[in-house]
């Protein structure tokens, strides 16, 4: 079951990656990132349960904390962005270039 769980995690991860790269709306990009984080959690938990070691779940908690911090800051930035530029298009805001 572990191998299958890992494969499912990988499928979810690449789905998230494809979404992140294909979508232009920042809301969907953030959703894709959440999906990728979830996929990573699944891989950690699967591996942890295989070895009957708590480390996998510990990593899950860290991912959880990270995701909470990331989502709050990213959504705040998103609000600010739509307020200033009147758009949620990731391609439209590319002022920080060389």
């Amino acid at each position, binding site marked *: 079951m572990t191998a299958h769980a890992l494969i499912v995690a990988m499928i979810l991860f690449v789905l998230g990656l494809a979404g992140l790269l294909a979508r232009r*709306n920042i*809301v969907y990009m953030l*959703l894709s990132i959440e999906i990728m984080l979830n996929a990573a959690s699944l891989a950690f*938990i*699967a591996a*942890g349960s295989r070895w009957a070691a708590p480390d996998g779940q510990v990593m899950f908690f860290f991912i959880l*904390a990270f995701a909470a911090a990331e989502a709050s800051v990213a959504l705040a930035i998103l609000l*600010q962005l739509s307020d200033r530029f009147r758009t949620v298009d990731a391609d439209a805001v590319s002022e920080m270039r060389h």
Partner: protein
Amino acid sequence: MEFLFYIAAAVSVIATARVVTHLHAVHALLYLVVAMMALSLMFYLLGAPFAAVLEIIIYAGAIVVLFVFVVMLLNQGPLTVEQERRWLPRGAWLGPGLLALLLLGEVAFLIAFGSAVPSDVGSLAPKTVGLSLYGPYIIGVELASMLLLPGLIGAYHVGRRLARGDRQA
């Protein structure tokens, strides 16, 4: 038990695919909740009941609600579906899809033909996890707290509405 796992896996994959392809933001979020429920079930079946509960409470509960609020604030309702369709032509999927498939193929190859992965599954009590978290991983807990505090402050600072004069035209 096995078939439960495969059903959950199928549900999560399909729901996730819908999340990334859907044009309506609120619907996409609902699919995300479904995917997380399925993931939570998989966690439970993999012997991590506490992680499963947290997945529901924090991901599906807190983070998704945060997204819902933001989507409401941004007015990402039915009106923007057309815009999304414009932004997302069929061809846009080609490159990312290829890249993702390549990645998937590689990892699948590694999992299938790499060193053998045994498949027995043990269950871990939350107590063990907690002991480990506050034992050898205590520095990680401290770091996480250090991450969350600036996250809180940053979200407050960045997210506050600008005074009218500061806005760009």
